């Protein structure tokens, strides 16, 4: 049959295109398209390119008998060009199998024509959205603060609500386990401060004043700040991620419906734990920071440890130490509140955990420094 067809058909073929997936014969009065080989996903781009080149002006016979394999994308592709060719010419499809026909009808049934227009947003839209969402976030934070305050007050009227076990657990997690990293950082910062000032002080022959400088700056400013920054990065982010994950898995919804208020069970224990742990951590950072500067002073300026400690006792008034310690609970409140608030803001998708955790750390470090500046101004105004 094939040979005869070739023999008789050969004379009137105007052009012939032969590719692995398609053979297209143009005759005087008709076009023959033969689908061949694998009409599957990975060959679709090649087949598509060839089909694009065809612009028929004669009746078409589309032969499926040489197609070896097909999948939905192959039949879809056929469907698109069948519809396109049908608009201009008569198309006859032959040689298709039962499976191919059924697949065609299955796909035809599910063919969706209308395209949903994609909305594009301009810069103004983004600016507006940023402002509005910022304002909404601020309102939510006020809401959160209000709830938390009421919950905190209820602790005094209903002491049974206090979750001692959780508080102790979080003191261990956020306080005790942070000792190593805090001691390392504050030791290094104390050392660097002394080391850098030593050169300048030595030029004036004011070597011993290193003790005044390091003592005051470490206890009053540096130790609280370093502790707060480490805790914000370490525990603030953990609070956000923990609460955020609980939000996604609907644990928080489950808690609410069982009557367990997340403020009592999640937020307050973390906040109280941090309020207790923070001053202790700052005290610890004070000691390590002064040890660091003692070490640097003895190396660089030959001030012995005894000399350093004697001088420290003379010049460092206890108020500086207390000011540093007092800052602790305030920083703790900020870090815990922001961490928990951000966690509760997590929505249903995983990306928002990342976003909120970043926001939590950035916000809490910023507000810690802001709060520290506020302390500085007030205390200086009061002359302390």
């Amino acid at each position, binding site marked *: 049959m094939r040979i005869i067809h070739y023999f008789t058909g050969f004379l009137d073929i105007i052009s012939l295109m032969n590719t692995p997936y398609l053979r297209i014969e143009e005759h005087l009065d008709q076009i023959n398209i033969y689908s061949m080989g694998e009409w*599957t*996903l*990975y060959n*679709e*781009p090649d087949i*598509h390119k060839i089909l694009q080149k065809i612009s028929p002006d004669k009746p078409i016979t589309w032969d499926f008998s040489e197609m070896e394999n097909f*999948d*939905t*994308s192959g039949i*879809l*592709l056929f469907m*698109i060009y069948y519809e396109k060719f049908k608009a201009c010419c008569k198309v006859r499809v032959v040689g298709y199998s039962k*499976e191919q026909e*059924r*697949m065609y009808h*299955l*796909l035809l*049934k*599910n*063919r*969706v024509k*209308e*395209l*949903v227009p994609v909305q594009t947003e301009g810069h103004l839209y983004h600016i507006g959205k940023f402002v509005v969402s910022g304002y909404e976030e601020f309102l939510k934070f006020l809401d959160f603060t209000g709830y938390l305050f009421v919950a905190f007050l209820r602790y005094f009227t209903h002491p049974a609500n206090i979750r001692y076990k959780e508080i102790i657990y979080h003191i261990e997690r956020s306080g005790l386990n942070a000792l190593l990293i805090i001691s390392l950082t504050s030791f290094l910062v104390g050392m660097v401060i002394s080391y850098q000032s030593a050169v300048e002080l030595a030029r004036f022959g004011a070597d011993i004043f290193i003790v005044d400088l390091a003592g005051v700056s470490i206890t009053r400013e540096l130790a609280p700040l370093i502790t707060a920054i480490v805790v914000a990065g370490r525990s603030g982010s953990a609070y956000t991620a923990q609460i955020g994950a609980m939000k996604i898995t609907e644990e928080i919804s489950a808690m609410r419906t069982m009557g367990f208020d997340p403020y009592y069970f999640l937020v307050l224990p973390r906040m109280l734990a941090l309020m207790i742990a923070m001053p202790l951590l700052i005290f610890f950072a004070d000691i390590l920071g002064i040890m660091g500067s003692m070490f640097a002073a003895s190396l660089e300026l030959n001030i012995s440890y005894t000399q350093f400690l004697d001088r420290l006792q003379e010049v460092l008034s206890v108020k500086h130490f207390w000011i540093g310690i007092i800052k602790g609970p305030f920083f703790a409140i900020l870090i815990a509140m922001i961490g928990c608030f951000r966690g509760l803001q997590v*929505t*249903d*998708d*995983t*990306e928002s955990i990342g976003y909120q955790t970043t926001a939590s750390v950035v916000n809490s470090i910023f507000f810690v420094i802001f709060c520290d500046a506020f302390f500085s101004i007030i205390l200086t105004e009061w002359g302390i």
Partner: protein
Amino acid sequence: MEKIIEVRDIVTSFGSTIIHDKVNLTVEKNNIYGILGESGSGKTLLMKEMIMLLKPTAGEVWVLGHKLSDIRYQDAQSLRHQWGILFQFGALFTSLTVAENIELQLKEYTSISKKMRDIIVKTKISMVGLPSRAGGLYPSALSGGMIKRAALARALAIDPKLLFLDEPTSGLDPIGARNFDALIVELRELLGITVVMITHDLESIYSIVDRFSVLADKHVVAEGSLENVLQSNHPFVERFFKNNYSEKIKMRVDGNV
């Protein structure tokens, strides 16, 4: 019959807890193969071992002729292009819309034009019974049943030769579940795919599953066609199939056929 999956003497244990103790099963080409078993019998774990998410403690798994324990990276990747997986809870990427979820593999692994990809995605969305507007939604805005459908559409995106379904009809309404079954049968017949499904749905078992195995007491206690399995007198098989409810469903399904 060509063997698509062979599981040989699989042992799975976590510490002293033994989940599978020498599990054997064979999935043949163009079959719809069911895995049935009690909660905690390790059905999902067994599937995870077939799709290279978990290494069995001992034993061998062959999938499409590859031995999974010492498969090369390239072979593993090509295997991953040939199968589609529907996870129990959908496991859609939450940062992408439904349409983007379905499109992802097409976009990464083929050079199909954007326009054609859109057409394929829209067709798949409609095939699984989702409304076309669902394509633009994020998974967080979908109901449980819609997540299942979207996940099936994603599993079907690259027209896999092998389809793994973890409880495909749970969480669907009964009518939706039957349409789901019908679609799977249709695809099996038209594209010659092989389906491995974990299911508890008696209607699916009676109507579409060709062969299945029953996991209980760390073993496969029965394997084969429905008649073969029903001959077993294992307590789980007795409890699951030989009760009024189960027989009523069987009568209804048989009546329809």
